[in-house]
C-alpha cells in the first residue's frame, strides 16, 4: 500500500488525471460485472461472465445510431466528459466541492438530454431524475462540509492525508452518504429514473430514446461515476488505506444487497426519506461537530 501512495505522491496532477481516465472505466466495468454476477447469485441464477458489461458496451458502440432529434447525443457526450472530469479532479487530489459541483453539472446534462427528446417516457424519467438529484444533493454537499469541519480543507489530498480517521468524527455523515449512495448507484428502491432491472419496467425512463453508441456512453459515464463515489467512501477511512478499500467494497456489496431486497419506492418516499435521513444523520453530525470546536 505504501508503494502505491508513494507513487501517487510522486505523480503530477495531470498524470493522476490521466491515470484515472484509463483505469476507472476498467475498474468500473469490472465492478458492474461483479454486480451482475452477485445479483444473479442472490436471485439463484448463474449470471453472465464478469466481463459481460464490456461486451455489452462494445456491442452498443458498433450499433446503428437511431435518434429522434439531431442534437440529442450532444448532452450525453457532455455528460460523459464532465463525469470523467469530476472523477479526474477527485483522484488528482483537487477540491472536493469543485468535484461535487462538476458532477452536478454532468448530471444536469444527462437530464437536459432526456428532456430534449421530448418523449413522454424520458420526460418522466428526467423529472424523476431531477427529484433524485434534489434528494441526494444536500447530503453530498454536507459530506464536503463535514470533511471541511474536521480537516479544515476542501482539498481531497489534504483530507486523505489527515492525521486521524475521519469516520470517527463523521459517522452520521457517512451513514447519510451511504443512504443517498443507493440513489447515485441507481439501485432499487431508488432507481426511479432508470433501472438496471429489465423486469421492473417496459420502457427505461431517462434513456428511452438513447440507443447504440449513446447508450454505451451513458453506461461508461456510470462506471466512472461509481468509481468516483466509492472513492468518496474511501475518503472516510483514508487513514487506514486497507480498511478504506475494504469498506468501499463492502459498501458496494451492501448496495447490491439492498437492491435485491427492496421493491421500488415512489418518488414521494424517496425524496422525503432522503431529506429526512440527511437531516437526522448528516445535519446532526455537522451540528455536533460545530459545538465540539
Amino acid at each position, binding site marked *: 500500500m505504501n508503494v502505491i501512495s508513494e507513487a501517487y505522491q510522486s505523480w503530477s496532477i495531470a498524470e493522476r488525471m490521466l491515470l484515472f481516465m484509463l483505469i476507472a472505466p476498467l475498474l468500473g466495468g469490472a465492478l458492474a460485472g461483479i454486480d451482475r454476477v452477485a445479483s444473479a447469485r442472490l436471485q439463484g441464477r448463474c449470471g453472465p461472465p464478469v466481463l459481460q458489461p464490456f461486451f455489452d458496451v462494445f456491442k452498443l458502440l458498433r450499433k446503428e445510431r437511431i*435518434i429522434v432529434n439531431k442534437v440529442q447525443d450532444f448532452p450525453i457526450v457532455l455528460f460523459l466528459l464532465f463525469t470523467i472530469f469530476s472523477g479526474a479532479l477527485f483522484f488528482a487530489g483537487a477540491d472536493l466541492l469543485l468535484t461535487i459541483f462538476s458532477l452536478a453539472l454532468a448530471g*444536469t446534462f444527462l437530464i437536459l438530454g432526456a428532456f430534449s427528446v*421530448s418523449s*413522454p*417516457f424520458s420526460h418522466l424519467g428526467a423529472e424523476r431524475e431531477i427529484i433524485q438529484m*434534489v434528494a441526494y444533493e*444536500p447530503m453530498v454537499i*454536507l459530506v464536503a*462540509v463535514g470533511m471541511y469541519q474536521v480537516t479544515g480543507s476542501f482539498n481531497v489530498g489534504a483530507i486523505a492525508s489527515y492525521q486521524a480517521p475521519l469516520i470517527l468524527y463523521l459517522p452520521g455523515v457517512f451513514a447519510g452518504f451511504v443512504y443517498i449512495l443507493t440513489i447515485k448507484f441507481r439501485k432499487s428502491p431508488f432507481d426511479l429514473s432508470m433501472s438496471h432491472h429489465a423486469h421492473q419496467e417496459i420502457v427505461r425512463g431517462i434513456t428511452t430514446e438513447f440507443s447504440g453508441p449513446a447508450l454505451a456512453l451513458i453506461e461508461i459515464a456510470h462506471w466512472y461515476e461509481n468509481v468516483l463515489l466509492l472513492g468518496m467512501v474511501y475518503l472516510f477511512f483514508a487513514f487506514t488505506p486497507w480498511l478504506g478499500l475494504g469498506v468501499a467494497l463492502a459498501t458496494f456489496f451492501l448496495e447490491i444487497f439492498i437492491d435485491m431486497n427492496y421493491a421500488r419506492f415512489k418518488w414521494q418516499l424517496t425524496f422525503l426519506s432522503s431529506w429526512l435521513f440527511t437531516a437526522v444523520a448528516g445535519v446532526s453530525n455537522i451540528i455536533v461537530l460545530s459545538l465540539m470546536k
Partner: protein
Amino acid sequence: MTALLFLILFPLAVSFLALVPPHSLAFRKAVGACVNVTLCAVPIYLLITNLERGAAYFHVESKLIDVGMLFAELFIAVFIVYVSVRAKRYIPVLLVVVQTAIMVTFEFTSGHGMQVEHSLFVDKFSIIMALIIGIIGSAICLYAIGYMPEYHEHYEEVKDRRRYFAFLLYLFLSAMFGIVFSNNLMWIYFFWEVTTVCSFLLIGYRDDKASRESAFRALNMNLLGGVVFSVGLFTLYSTSGIMELDKLLLADKGSILLPAVCFAFAGLVKSAQFPFCSWLTGAMVAPTPVSALLHSSTMVKAGVYLILRVAPVMENTVAAQMLTLVGGVSFLVTALIAISQSNAKKVLAYSTISNLGLIVACAGVNTDAAVWSAILLIIFHAVAKSLLFLCVGIIEYKLGSRDIEDMDYLILRLPKLTAIMMVGMAGMFLAPFGMIISKFVTLKAFVESTPVMAIILAYGSAATIFFWTKWMGKIISIKHGVAEVMEHRVSNWEWITLGMLAVVTVAVSLGFPFISFHVINPYLTELFGTIPVVDSFNVLMVSVIMLGLLIILPLGLLYYAFIDKNYKRVGTYLGGGNIDNTTFEGAMASVRTIELKNYYLENYFGEERLINVGVFVSLTLTFIMFGVAVI
C-alpha cells in the same frame, strides 16, 4: 467628484427631457442610445481612474441642497397622501405622516447644528454598484424604448403614458446613483424614498385593480422601511451625532447598534426579504423592464448594499446572527417556493429573493470571504437575472403567455432567444458560471462561522437546481416536424440589449479573477485588512470549464446539426403507433395526444404554506434582532 455629480444629475436631466412632448420613436431611440453609451462610459471611466486609489470623500456645500431635499421630501409626502386618499387607502397616509413628522422634528431640532463633512464618496464597492446601474440599468431603459410600444399594442386598454414611464425610469437611475455615492445618510435616505416612490408608480403603471393592489402593497412595506430608516437616523444623531456612512464604522459600536439595526431593517424591506417578500412577487404585474430594472438588478440591490455597508457595525452581535438567519430563511424558503411556481416571472422573482437572502446572510456573517462572495453574487445575479427577465418579457408577447408550461419547444420557435436564456439560466446556477464560485466561497465562510447556514445552503442549492433544470428542460425539448418560427418578430432593438447582457454574463464569469483582484480585494483590504484566499487551482479549473464550454458548445452543436449525417432518424416512442410527433394510436384504435408537463410538487412546496412558515420564523428573528439592539 464631477463624475459623481454628473452620474446623479445626468439621468435626472434625461428624465425631464423624456417628459417633453413631441419627437418620433426614432429620435427617442437615438437619445436613448446616447444616454446608454454615456451611462456605461462614465462608471467605466470612474473605475479606471480609481483603480489604484482607495476611497475618496468629497465635501459638498450642502445647505441649499439640504433645503431642496427637504422640500422634495415634503412634496413626495404630499403626493403620496394625495394618491392614497384618492384611492381610499389610509395606511400609507399614516406611515407618511409618521415619517414626515419624524423628519421635520429632526430637521428643526438638530438640522441647524448638523455638520456634514463629506456628503459624497466613492470607493470600489460604489463603483461596482455604479457599473451595474450604469450598464445594466441603461441597457434596460434602452430595451424599454423598444418594448413599450409593443406593450401598448397588447394592452390596448392601458392608457399610453410612455413618457411618464421613461421619466420614472431615468429618475430612478438618478436616485440609484445617489444612493451608492452618498456618504451623507440624510441623502441616502432621500434617494431611498425616491426609489420607493418610483417603484410604487411603476408597479401601478397599468392602473388596473391587480396592479393598484400590488403597488400599494409595495408602497406600504417600503414606507414602513422608510419610517424605520428615519427612526434610525434620529437615534443615530441623538446618541452619537454622526450623520455619515464612513464615520459610522469608526464610532463606538455598542452605542450605535440600534440605528444600524434600523438601517438593516430598511434594507431587508427594500430587498424583499422575509417577512416582506410579498411586495416583490406582487410587483411582477409591472411591465417587464420595470421588473428587470427595479425588482431584480438594481433597486432590490440597494437594500443589500445598505446592509453590507452597516454590517460591520453589527459585527459579532446577536443582531448580526439574526440578520444572517433572516437571510438564510429567505434563501431557503423562497427557493423551495419557486419549485411550485409555473409563472415565469414569479419563478424569477422568488429566485431573486432567494439570492438576495444569500447576500444578506453573507453580510450578517461579515468576514472577508463572506463579503467577497456577497459582492460577486450581486454582480452575477444582476447580470443574469436582468437578462432572464428581458427574455421572458419577449416570450410573453410572442407566445401570449408567461407560463412556463406554455414554453414547450421554445428552442424551435425562438432558437436564438432560447440560447440566450440558457446562458442566463446557466449563469444562475451551473458550475462554470460565476454564481457557483461565490457559492463555493460562501459555503466556506458559513462553515467557519455559522454551520447552520451551511446546512441551509446545502438544501437551498438542491432546490435551486430543481426549478432551474426543469425550466431549462422545458424550453429545449424538441419535436419532430414543423414548428412555427416567430423569431423574426423580435426587433433588432431588443436583440441588441439581449446580446449585450448575454455577453456581459459570460464576460463577468470569465473575468471574475480580474474583478476580484482589482476591485473587490482592495475594498476588502480597506475594510478587513485581509482578503479571502481563493485556491488558484480552483479558479484555473473553473476557467478551464468555462472556456471549454465556450469552445465545445458551439462546435458540438455545429457538428451535430450540420456535419454529422451518420444516423437514422425515427419518431419518439409514445406507447402506440405514432400518428405524428404528439399523437398516437393507442389501444382499441383510439387516438391519443400526449402532453408533457413538469412537476411542481404543490403539496410539498405550495406558496401559501411555506410563506406562512417563512413569515412567522423571520418575524420572530426580526423581533429578536431589534430586541437585542434596544437592550
